[in-house]
């Protein structure tokens, strides 16, 4: 890095934290930092997507209890609650498609605290809209440009964007998604493996109400999950080996319908897709480091996990909560909040959790995605055991809700 003499052009500005990427994680972080650092802190978010104005993400996300508490503290939950469908029951079964009856091994009937559903299904577009509006209202500076480059020296980061504009800040956070360009610019490698599987995702409409029930069927090709949406609709995440997934979506509509019914069943009456099924290849990827000099990775830029446990966004929001807390704790006592010690705290907090979750979901996926009868027996016995031990199940549910471990304040619903 060359210590070039910064010529002070009129197009250069300052910020306390610069965030690259205005997805769900980036905007949540901006709001969390407004909460933690106060109104006199300058938070700037750069994303070319602001220029497009609309966010056409047709998917929905499962928001676990911890993440919902975070959104409540940030004042966003009220805005999305109407469009959110509580998940009150989760049924997990393990069966071959042709089995007549599906044994029900795990019924997560539990509520995390009295009156609190363990997760909510929220359309991504609704959440994105609410976060964008909240960020604007909170005085976060939104710039409709991508980060072009950045350079770091001992006292700060200089971020270039647009034609010749620069921003100087103590800290730059990359929330620019799984294919993070900033991660690449920072020279941070990822470890990854592909599953050879893809998820087919779409929304279905069914005759009868789902009553807040999520189902996950572990089929030989991969898990087939349905998640309740408002009204008589559900979100489907259907995992298959990639070639098979590709074949399925290219089938004529009536053949695809047959395959869907075989898996979805007819317990909710007639079922039909109302959005076009799309295929997403699955993999596990994790950055070798979550931090650099005055630089941090958050959300999918830091890790991408198998959607089997529905934990991707929840993990990202946990990153947000942990980083915002580490920054706030340091800033409140006047310490350099982008120092190696602060960023190390964030990394220690999140990396083990991420790896554990990655390995767990990978293991879960491998366990359930094969035909071995011995494995089948093991998981039948294993899950049966969990079901019979109420205490263990409570722990399992709390974990699915993201509440175990050293939980950051925001995930507990406590303001910074």
């Amino acid at each position: 890095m060359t210590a070039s003499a910064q010529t002070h052009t009129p197009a250069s500005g300052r910020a306390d934290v610069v965030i690259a990427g205005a997805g769900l994680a980036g905007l949540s972080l901006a709001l969390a930092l407004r909460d933690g650092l106060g109104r006199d802190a300058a938070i700037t978010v750069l994303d070319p997507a602001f220029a497009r104005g609309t966010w056409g993400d047709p998917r929905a996300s499962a928001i676990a209890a911890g993440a919902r508490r975070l959104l409540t503290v940030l004042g966003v939950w009220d805005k999305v609650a109407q469009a959110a469908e509580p998940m009150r029951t989760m049924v997990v079964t393990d069966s071959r498609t042709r089995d007549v009856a599906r044994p029900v091994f795990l019924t997560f009937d539990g509520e995390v605290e009295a009156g609190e559903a363990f997760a909510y299904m929220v359309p991504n577009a609704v959440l994105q809209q609410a976060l964008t509006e909240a960020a604007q209202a909170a005085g976060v500076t939104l710039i409709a440009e991508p980060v072009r480059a950045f350079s770091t020296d001992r006292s700060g980061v200089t971020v270039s964007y647009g034609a010749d504009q620069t921003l100087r800040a103590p800290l730059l956070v990359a929330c620019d998604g799984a294919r993070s360009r900033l991660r690449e610019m920072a020279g941070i490698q990822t470890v990854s493996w592909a599953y050879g599987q893809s998820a087919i995702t779409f929304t279905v409409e069914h005759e009868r109400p789902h009553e807040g029930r999520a189902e996950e069927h572990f089929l030989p090709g991969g898990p087939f999950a349905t998640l309740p949406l408002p009204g008589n609709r559900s979100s489907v995440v259907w995992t298959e080996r990639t070639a098979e997934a590709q074949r399925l979506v290219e089938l004529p509509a009536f053949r695809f319908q047959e395959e869907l019914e075989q898996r979805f069943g007819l317990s909710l009456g007639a079922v039909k897709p109302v959005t076009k099924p799309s295929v997403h290849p699955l993999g596990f990827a994790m950055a070798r480091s979550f931090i650099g000099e005055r630089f941090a990775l958050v959300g999918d830029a830091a890790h991408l996990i198998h959607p089997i446990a529905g934990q991707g966004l929840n993990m990202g929001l946990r990153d947000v909560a942990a980083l915002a807390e580490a920054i706030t704790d340091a800033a409140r006592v006047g310490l350099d909040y982008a120092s190696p010690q602060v960023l190390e705290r964030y990394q220690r907090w999140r990396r083990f959790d991420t790896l554990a979750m990655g390995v767990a979901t990978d293991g879960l996926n491998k366990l359930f995605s094969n035909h071995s009868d011995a494995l089948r027996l093991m998981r039948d016995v294993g899950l049966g055991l969990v079901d019979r031990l109420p205490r263990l199940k409570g722990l399992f549910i709390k974990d699915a809700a993201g509440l175990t471990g050293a939980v950051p304040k925001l995930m507990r619903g406590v303001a910074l």
Partner: protein
Amino acid sequence: MPQVSPQPNLTVDPAEVARFEALGEEWWDPKGKMAPLHAINPARLAFLRDVIVRHFGHDPRSLRPLKGLRVLDIGCGGGLISEPMARMGADMVGIDPSAGNVEIASAHAARADLTIDYRATTAEELADAGERFDVVMALEVVEHVADVGLFVRRAVEMVQPNGLFIGSTLNRTGKSFALAIVGAEYVLRWLPRGTHRWDKFVTPGEFEASLAAGGFEMRELAGLSFDPLRGTWALSADTDVNYFIVAGPMG
């Protein structure tokens, strides 16, 4: 080096100054010789901020809660306390008898874009010049000075009528001998050997008596304890090893 015997009217012990000056750049290395100071710093800064904010009625949630206050850091060393206090908005003056320390502190503050008035001088010189402050701090200092009574008297002279004096030091107990001298310097090698002399440690009673001689009364006494499992420091009622003393003018 010839042993310099402290003169009775001098608040600075030259042998002690030389020991700290030898640390040089190590001041700011969180993994270096001053690692224990870096570890204890967040807890100390939180205490300082809370005490000051409460006394002056400022907003603790502000990023600059010390704005508008002129604060003196006696024995500022490399600036480990002065810098964060300046970031919290204080108008900082940091003094240290070691010119080397002041140089390191100034260079570091410049790199961090902070304005701090660092001076290589002593508390008595500053008091003689008639300087006044809202808050005068002497953190981990009295155990290194030649004459505690004289030092405290000169330090509180510089406190504004509605201001505060905040001191912190090591208590002279069996526990502090075990933890600070044997533990920290010899067993854990946290601090360079010879950094502290247990016989120079000051008890809260002695500190309070020195303050009273200067017309100041104790307002608060708090301990700092190390949690070996989490590797962090926290405020506690245990003042046997490391403690803070907060005082204001009597009456």
